[in-house]
C-alpha cells in the first residue's frame, strides 16, 4: 500500500515543507519519495503490523505532520498516482480499498493530472471535465490523436502508476557531541576526549562510504563562549587519528582561552576518493600524512610564505609566487632535462631584498663594488643585459652584470635604470 502526505500550509517554520514532510516520512519508512514542492509518497509495506487498520495509519501520518507545524492532507491507496491526486484534492484522511482507485479518482477534475495549459484547453474543447471522462475515451482514439502520451494520460486518469517509487535518501548529518561532567582545561585531556568523539563520527562516515572534506570543532567554554575552528585539509579523510592530530595542532596555534564544557564535532561529508595506483610510477604521498606534516609546519606555511614556488609568466627576473604545497599525481615534465644532460646548473642565491651597492664604473663597466658584507675590485664582468617591463603599471628597468669580485666569488649586480641605483641581486653558486 502507498500513502501520500500533502502539505497545505507549513506554519512558521523556516525549513521548506518538503524537508519536514520527508522527516515525517522517514520516521515510518525509508522508502519515501519527495514530490516537490509539497508532497511526499510513502511505501507503507510492512507497517500493517503496527497499524492494522489503514485509517489508523492515515491518522498517525497526519498527527506526525501536525506535530511539525504542518497542515497535512493524507491519502492511502494501492496506487501512488491515486494517493497523490486524492491527497491533493480531498481534505481529511482518505483510504481507498484495492481495486477502487479508478472509481475514486474519476470525479476529480482534469487539473489533478498537472497537464500543460494547452493540453487542458484541448481536453476542455473535447468536452472533458473529469478524470473519469478522460478514462472513458477509447485508447486507440487517444493514441491516434495524442501519440504515446494519450494512453499514458488515460492510465493516470484511472489511477494507475506509470513509474516505480524512487526513494529520496534521507539528509545526511555527521556530527557528534559530548557534554563534560566537569570542565576540562589543557590539550592533553582534550586529546582523549576528542578521540571519543571522532571515532564514532569517522566510523559513521566510513559506513556510508564518505570522507570528511572539512571538520568543524565547536568548543563550549565555561564562560558560555564558543570557540569554533574549521579545518579543511588538502584531501578528505576519515581516520580519527589523523583528524585528532590536525585538531590538536590547530588548537596549539589557536588555544580556546578557557576551560571546555562541551565538544561538538561536525563533518562536511564528501564521497570517498578513488585512487588508481600505478605499477610504474613512484608511490605518491598519502594526503592524510601530507596534511599532518603541513599542519605541523603551520608556523612556516601560515600567511602563504612557504609552500611550492610557482614561476610567474613575466619578464621580471626571478618573479615567483608561493602556492600551497599539494603535489598531485606524478606526470613526467615534457621540458625536463634529458638523460645524459647531467651537468649541474649555476644557481643564484638571491638577496631579498637586493642589497644596495656602491659601484665604481670605469669605461662603462663596473670596476669595484662595495655592499653590506662585500667589497673589492671586480676582476671579470659580463653584461650589460637589459630588461624592462610593466610600463603600464609599476615600471621597472634594469641592467644586469655578472661579476667576479676578487677573492669573494661570482655575483649578480644590477643597475636600476629608472633611479640609477646599483644593487647586489645575489651570489652565483
Amino acid at each position, binding site marked *: 500500500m502507498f500513502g501520500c502526505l500533502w502539505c497545505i500550509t507549513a506554519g512558521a517554520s523556516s525549513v521548506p515543507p518538503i524537508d519536514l514532510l520527508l522527516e515525517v516520512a522517514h520516521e515510518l519508512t525509508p522508502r519515501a519519495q519527495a514530490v516537490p514542492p509539497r508532497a511526499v509518497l510513502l511505501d507503507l509495506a510492512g507497517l500493517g503490523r503496527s497499524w492494522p487498520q489503514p485509517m489508523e495509519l492515515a491518522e498517525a501520518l497526519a498527527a506526525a505532520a501536525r506535530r511539525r507545524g504542518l497542515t497535512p492532507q493524507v491519502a492511502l491507496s494501492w496506487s501512488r498516482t491515486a494517493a497523490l491526486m486524492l491527497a491533493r484534492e480531498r481534505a481529511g484522511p482518505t483510504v481507498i480499498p484495492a481495486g477502487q482507485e479508478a472509481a475514486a479518482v474519476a470525479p476529480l477534475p482534469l487539473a489533478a493530472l498537472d497537464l500543460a495549459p494547452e493540453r487542458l484547453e484541448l481536453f476542455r474543447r473535447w468536452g472533458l471535465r473529469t478524470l473519469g471522462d478522460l478514462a472513458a475515451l477509447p485508447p486507440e482514439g487517444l493514441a491516434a490523436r495524442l501519440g504515446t502520451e494519450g494512453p499514458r494520460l488515460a492510465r493516470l486518469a484511472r489511477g494507475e502508476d506509470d513509474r516505480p517509487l524512487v526513494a529520496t535518501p534521507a539528509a545526511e548529518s555527521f556530527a557528534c557531541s559530548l557534554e563534560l561532567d566537569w570542565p576540562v582545561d589543557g590539550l592533553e585531556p582534550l586529546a582523549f576526549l576528542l578521540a571519543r568523539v571522532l571515532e564514532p563520527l569517522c566510523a559513521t562516515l566510513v559506513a556510508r562510504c564518505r570522507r570528511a572534506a572539512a571538520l568543524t570543532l565547536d568548543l563550549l567554554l565555561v564562560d558560555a563562549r564558543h570557540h569554533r575552528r574549521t579545518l579543511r585539509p588538502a584531501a578528505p579523510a576519515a581516520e580519527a587519528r589523523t583528524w585528532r592530530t590536525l585538531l590538536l595542532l590547530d588548537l596549539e596555534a589557536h588555544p580556546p582561552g578557557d576551560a571546555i564544557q562541551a565538544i561538538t564535532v561536525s563533518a562536511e561529508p564528501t564521497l570517498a576518493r578513488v585512487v588508481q595506483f600505478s605499477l610504474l610510477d613512484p608511490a605518491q604521498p598519502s594526503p592524510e600524512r601530507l596534511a599532518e606534516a603541513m599542519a605541523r609546519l603551520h608556523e*612556516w606555511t601560515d600567511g602563504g610564505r612557504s609552500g*611550492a*614556488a610557482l614561476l610567474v609568466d613575466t619578464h621580471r627576473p626571478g618573479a615567483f609566487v608561493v602556492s600551497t604545497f599539494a603535489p598531485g599525481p606524478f606526470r613526467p615534465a615534457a621540458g625536463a632535462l634529458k638523460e645524459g644532460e*647531467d651537468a649541474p646548473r649555476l*644557481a*643564484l*642565491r638571491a638577496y631579498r631584498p637586493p642589497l644596495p651597492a656602491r659601484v665604481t664604473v670605469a669605461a662603462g663597466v663596473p670596476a669595484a663594488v662595495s655592499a653590506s658584507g662585500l667589497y673589492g675590485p671586480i676582476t671579470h664582468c*659580463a653584461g650589460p643585459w637589459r630588461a624592462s617591463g610593466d610600463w603600464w603599471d609599476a615600471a621597472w628597468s634594469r641592467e644586469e652584470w655578472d661579476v667576479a669580485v676578487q677573492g669573494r666569488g661570482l655575483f649578480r649586480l644590477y643597475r636600476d635604470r629608472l633611479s640609477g641605483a646599483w644593487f647586489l641581486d*645575489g651570489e652565483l653558486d
Partner: protein
Amino acid sequence: MSAALKSQLEDLLKARRLQRDAPPLRGERRLSPLSSGLRALDELMGGGWPRGQVSEAHGLASSGRTGLALAGVSALTRKGALAAWVDPLDRFSPASASDAGVDLARLLWLRGPRPGGLSRALAATDVLLGSSLFDLVVLDLAGVPRADLGRLPHTTWHRLQRTVGPLPVVLLLLTDAHLAHGPGGVSLALSPGGGHWIGQGPGRLLTGLASQAQWSRRVQALRFDLQAFS
C-alpha cells in the same frame, strides 16, 4: 632456449635491473643511494648521497654548493619523489631551480627568516624528516654566521642523525665550512675554480663555473663545471 631466457629474465627482475631507475616496491626499504644528479660524482660517492645519513656539501661562496644540491633535487623530483628545502636566510631562487630541471610542485620550500632563527629551522627539519614524505631534505645554512652555528647545542647534529638514521631519507647540509655529517654520510668539500668567460667587451658571457669536489674518504678529487645555461 626459452627456459634459459626465462631464467635470465627472472634473474634480472630479482636484481631489479630491467629498468635502471625503477621506483622501489611499496613497503620496500630504499637502501640505494640517492643520485646527486652528476654521474661522476655518484661514482665518487659510491652511488650517490647515502640514505639514512646526514651529509654535507661545504665550500666558500661560488663553489657550486647550491647548484650541486639543486642537481640532486632535480634528479629526484623528475622521478616523482618529493624534496624539501629549508631556507632560513631566504636565499633560494625558484628560477634557478626551474632552470636546473627541478619540478617545483614537488619541492617544499620553507622560507625564513622566522622568529627563533636557526632553532625553528632545525625543528622544521626534524618534522620533515619524521614525516617520511621526502626523499631529500636540504638544510641551507650557507651564509649563516659561524657564531650563530656555534651557539647551537652540540647535540643538534647527533639528534638529527638519530632521527634520519632509520629512515630512507637524505639530509644534506649546505654550509660555508665543515659542520657535521653522519658516520656513513658524505662530507664533500667544494672549492671554487673560477668562472668561465667567453668574449670580450660588451656581450661578454659567463658560461659557467668550475668547481672541485673532494671527499675525505677518497684520494682523488672530482673537477666538474656548473653551466650557466643549456
